[in-house]
């Protein structure tokens, strides 16, 4: 993984082309699709930060709620202190990170299935707190009144400037996440996943690294939540149900969680797919569910494994030598 992580010339060119495409695309989209593009950008950050949490091999069900913690922090800060977006976003991440740090003590005592269920319970308890304490969190109707920020005289209520803004924030976060994964810390997280006992035997404190991954992942998803609320203007507990958590899980797994870019492919492809079956209305979740099952059964490594599979069918680089082997 770390062997081919360098910034080669080829990668830089591909990156530049992709960036140019991203910057021009919103001008050709309808208002509805511009909206969608912004949420897609924010969801990319959500899935990539989730991947950091899962690097240690533990799957949590609290990530969506952590996004909500960020969103509620922004709403409270704007409503009570009228803070600018430069302050609210880092504070949103910090709040989510702090909540995660507190939850580390009970939750990280568990592993595997118990951690999954425990994090689900803790998340649902936090979410129901927002429902219950109407005075502070506004109950089921949530908090409103977060107006689109105006920065340097640019009104962010317009989707295109806000898209550029959120894209730059998300790219910055992705860069940091990528560097974390390929740093000593990230490699240690991989070690804890694949060779837990061995890692501990050479002096790695697995608990501390799991806590670190959990807190950092929550920090970045808190920022994603902050970005979302600054665009939507209001936050409700229903935006962060276990339903949304399931979507994050689906995006990561269908995309493939073994590579850094797998979840990004997952969220992009599935969002486009979801949009293309819009006309089916009621049937939409069923089509989604069927595709989910098919992708698990036939592409267990996720969409990111597709290019590799195609390559191995045809033979890489060289002219296709023989008919593909059936069980390759």
């Amino acid at each position, binding site marked *: 993984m770390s062997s081919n992580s360098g910034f080669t010339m080829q990668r830089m060119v591909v990156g530049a082309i992709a960036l140019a495409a991203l910057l021009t695309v919103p001008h050709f989209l309808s208002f509805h699709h511009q909206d969608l593009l912004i949420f897609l950008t924010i969801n990319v950050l959500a899935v990539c930060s989730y991947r950091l949490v899962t690097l240690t091999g533990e799957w949590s069900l609290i990530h969506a709620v952590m996004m909500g913690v960020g969103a509620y922090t922004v709403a409270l800060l704007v409503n009570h202190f009228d803070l600018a977006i430069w302050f609210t976003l880092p504070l949103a991440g910090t709040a989510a990170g702090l909540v995660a740090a507190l939850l580390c003590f*009970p939750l990280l005592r568990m592993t595997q299935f118990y951690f999954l269920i425990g994090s689900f319970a803790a998340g649902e308890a936090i979410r129901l707190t927002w429902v219950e304490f109407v005075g502070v969190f506004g109950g089921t109707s949530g908090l409103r009144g977060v107006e689109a920020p105006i920065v340097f005289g640019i009104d962010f209520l317009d989707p295109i400037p806000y898209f550029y803004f959120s894209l730059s924030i998300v790219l910055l976060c992705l860069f940091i996440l990528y560097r974390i994964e390929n740093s000593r810390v990230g490699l240690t997280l991989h070690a804890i996943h694949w060779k837990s006992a061995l890692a501990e035997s050479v002096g790695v404190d697995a608990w501390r690294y799991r806590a670190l991954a959990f807190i950092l992942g929550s920090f970045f998803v808190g920022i994603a939540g902050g970005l979302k609320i600054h665009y939507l203007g209001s936050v409700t507990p229903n935006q962060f149900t276990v339903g949304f958590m399931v979507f994050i899980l689906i995006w990561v797994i269908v995309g493939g969680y073994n590579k850094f870019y797998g979840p990004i492919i997952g969220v992009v492809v599935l969002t486009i797919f979801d949009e293309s079956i819009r006309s089916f209305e009621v049937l939409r979740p069923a089509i989604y569910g069927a595709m989910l099952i098919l992708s*698990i059964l036939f592409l267990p490594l996720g969409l990111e494994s597709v290019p590799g599979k195609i390559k191995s069918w045809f033979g890489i680089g060289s002219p296709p030598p023989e008919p593909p082997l059936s069980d390759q």
Partner: protein
Amino acid sequence: MGVVNFAHGELVMAGAFTIWLLHAQFGLGYIPAIAAAIVLVTAIGLLMERLLFRPTRSDPLAGLICSIGVLFILQVIAALIGGDGPSKQVPPPFHGTLVMFDVLRIPYQRVFSLIISAAALGTLWFFLTRSKFGWALRAVAMDREAAELQGINTDRISVIAIGVGTALAGLAGGLIAPLTNINPHMGHNVIVTAFIVTIVGGVGSLSGAVLAAILYAVFHTLVTVYFGGTIATISGLVLMVIVLIVKPTGLMGAKVSE
């Protein structure tokens, strides 16, 4: 068995919907409708076992995700059959109220549900602890390879386990149908409660689950009466986290080696 079925709540929903369709709409008797619900839900469960859980057995997460896919599909089917309108009601087939000592009043419908549930639980308990199948099931859950070496047909055991579990989900759907509002999304509450009860009682322990279910029902009702439903659910969830920390094996769970 190491299978986490997220669609279990939706199977209960499917059972309840069958009752609504056959009993309330087409006028079939209540008892035959329950039988039909059990058959239908068991069939769905067996299909899931064969098509989804068996191929993904090596990766529990994949099975979980597949069951989420089934959850979406079942909700859509229910919405297509029943329409998106308001929640459905099934008129209770048993009328009147059982009055005991002038203070305790239980509608006969609930008495019926209580008796049938208790009977089903008794049978299940006998099945799990006293029959050869129960021993085999626990052996498979503990160590699949070792069980196979002892000559246990693990595939057959899995089929029977899922079959029994889903049949009970169908029965539960049938019993709950006249007592509650039926809608395609009713499964969510079922699965949250089921998780809490299973964890607090101890995974794989039937007596623990029953004890936890009774305790949780009393606790939830009391807190709801005095503080409201949301607080009750929050404290239930917090309770579950505490149990997970203090005694991860639950109230009655046996020691599970890592």
